[in-house]
């Protein structure tokens, strides 16, 4: 038995396996948002169609779902149905908001006519709000509790069950 080989081998093998083991179940695609756990960033944007300004400050006191999307994003089509259903069911308890960036008003209106409108859709003209929220790609959705704290962020399209799970956490938050 060559002790030197054994020792060098152990020195290489044990930490390697330990580190890989500790990282099992890690999701490398997850970008940890520094915003989670912090107060939401307030913004004032105009609603598509009506042209009315909507101020986030006026929505304080209700849990919020802020969904960033665009008409050129194909997964957003499927996700829109999920959000519309969610808003129909939970709209009395939770305020849904859509924020569209890098898009044109006429297309947004056509999209909403075809896919349903259940909650206000705001236009993020220069993408400033998306940048402030660190949006990496669309769709992305932020969940804000009644106290105005960002509780969770979801990247990619939501489905019914994941939306329900997120809604349970924002409603169950500090009332």
């Amino acid at each position, binding site marked *: *038995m*060559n*002790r030197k*080989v*054994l020792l060098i*081998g*152990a020195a290489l*093998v044990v930490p*390697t*396996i330990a*580190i*890989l*083991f*500790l*990282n*099992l*179940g*890690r*999701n*490398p*695609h997850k*970008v*940890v948002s520094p915003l989670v756990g912090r107060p939401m960033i307030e913004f004032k944007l105009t609603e598509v169609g009506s042209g009315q300004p909507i101020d986030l400050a006026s929505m304080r006191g209700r849990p919020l779902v802020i969904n960033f999307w665009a008409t*050129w*994003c*194909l*997964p957003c089509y499927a996700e829109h149905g999920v959000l519309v259903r969610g808003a129909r069911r939970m709209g009395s308890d939770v305020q849904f908001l859509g924020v569209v960036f890098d898009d*044109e008003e006429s297309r947004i209106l056509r999209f909403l006519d075809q896919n349903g409108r259940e909650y206000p859709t705001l236009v993020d003209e220069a993408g400033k709000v998306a940048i402030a929220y660190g949006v990496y*790609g*669309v*769709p992305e959705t932020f969940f804000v509790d009644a106290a105005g704290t960002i509780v969770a962020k979801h990247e*990619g*399209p939501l489905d019914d069950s994941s939306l329900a799970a997120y809604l349970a956490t924002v409603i169950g938050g500090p009332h």
Partner: protein
Amino acid sequence: MIPALGRTLILLSLLLATSGAIVAFAAARRPAALAWARRLVYGYALAIAAANALMVWALLARDFSVGYVAQVGSHATPTWVTIVSLWSSLEGSILFWGLILGLYVAGATHATRGRYQTYMPYAIGTWLATAAFFSFLLAGPAQPFLTVANPPLDGPGPNPLLQNHILMAIHPPFLYLGYVGMTIPFGLAAAALMRRRLGHDLLRPLRNWLLLPWAFLSVAIVLGGWWAYEVLGWGGYWAWDPVENASFLPWLTATAALHSAIVVLRKGSLKGWTLTLILATFLLVILGTFMTRSGVFNSVHSFTQSSIGPTILVFLAAALVWSVVLLAMNIDRIEGEEGAFHGTSREAMFLVNNLLFVLFTLTVLIGTVFPLVVEAVQDRQISVGGPYFDRMAVPIGAALLFLMGIGPALPWGRATRDQVKRALLPPLVTAVVVLGIGLALGVRNGWTLLTLAFAGYAGHVTMKEMWLPLARRVRRGERAAEAFVEGQLGRGRRRFGAYIVHAAVVVIFAAIAVSSTMKVSSERQLRQGESMAIGDYTLSFFGAEVRREPHRVATIAHIGVYRDGRLVRNMGPRMHQYPTQREPIGTPDVHTSLKGDLYLSIMNVDPGAQSVGLHALINPMVAWIWIATGVLALGALVLLLPERRGAAGTIPESAAGTDPSPPPRTVGAPSEETP
């Protein structure tokens, strides 16, 4: 029906591999059992091949009652994509792994029939134990043949990135042929350790079976880079992505082993070291498999989150521990005479070469795993980016290129000062010439100039070593053609092939250095009819077109490329939107030429407003990487050509099982007629 049949075949392959491994190890004590172990190898290979054939059939028939087909199949995909789907997702890729492993194990078993009797029980046992693990994955954690109770009418199709380019049909098979093939030298090396002997009899199959997957892996790595270049649209071919690194790591150790094996042949030393490198190569292959399949690393290659990560990790841990114990127990017995290495000898250069390769391996390994360490210890996300790898890899690469010039020029053993001078001084002329050409063409980057000078030096030495034996024969009065067939393709075949590979690598080095430091890049937002200039090209945007294809929507920007007022060609970089993908996928268009590529990709495109954000690049010398890789494959082919029976240099069969002392002169690559 098909799912049940598929599951039966996989269970059969598991049964055959497991029993075969047991029988093979038992044959170490009862040689009569070896014949049965061989039969079980062929049985395993047949079973797993049949399972693969069945899956391809199910994919083509769009039988959505098969779990894997429901996951990756689609009526919309073209036939070639449907076949490629076999390896496009996790379960299928493991099934495909099994097919390649079956081919290799059966091939190696057949090629070694009646030979190396004392080693084969251990080798076959190790191969089949590995095969059993992969069949176990298919039988349990990664089942491709699950029954779908309510089959859907249509499926989503495979990952869009895999449908985007025909190279996806070629790159993975080559990678698997490289990756999986490392099982064979691993088994042979393990057999040498268990037998506590590495004779020249075993060294020859060991080298050949290492060389074959090494050649596939080399080509696969470059094909992967080519694919990234043609598909991903960022204008480069290598990004130190964790999974690129996963394919590069075993390549580094395998390359080191191919070189240290030459020292074993010539000097009888570095035996234990060579075996260590071969074991490490296989272990790095399994680590790479873990990296792509566990969902732990972020990469364009990674498969979806899966449950097989822990299973592969257990296998990796077991293989690591087993290898370390095997080495520790047997390395002292196996090591031959430890000859003193003279400072300016070829063997000393081989030693430095090996140290550099190992340093390179550790550098890349640390950079790849470091984010995991930080995250485990500090709960903080970091990424180790290109700059770290570039800063480390460039000096090591330059040093390796330098050695490629010095090493082959130096003679074996002790050389006189005069010999050293005569060997090392003349190539300096070529180094200076190539450096001068670089300077004249505008190269100013210090590392690139250094690389060009080293490439000139190594190129000179390589060419000289490649053709010197021929020149000598011709001078002795032989006809050139005969001398070529007799020498280059006959007795000196290994030497000739090795230097073809070296020549290709020299070109690749130069091309990488030039293309990564001399590129010209320009980004512009263009409206219809507007133009931009890059290099001596003028690019005109004619307009954007939306084309609906069965499996995607393509937006194509039509660009006219002009030089000196004349249309060179029309190019059409695209943006593809797949229904299942969150982001659109840009597909660049590349105009390739030997001098440099014109590379166009779309940053954004609006067919409504007829505007496009165009990213244009001129990448010099990139095509040389692809061409040289073809040459490298050719060199490997020359090395692997079966030796003519009775040709000088073959080891007599009687040598098998004994430990021959004097190394046969013509087997080592740089052997014939070297001083």
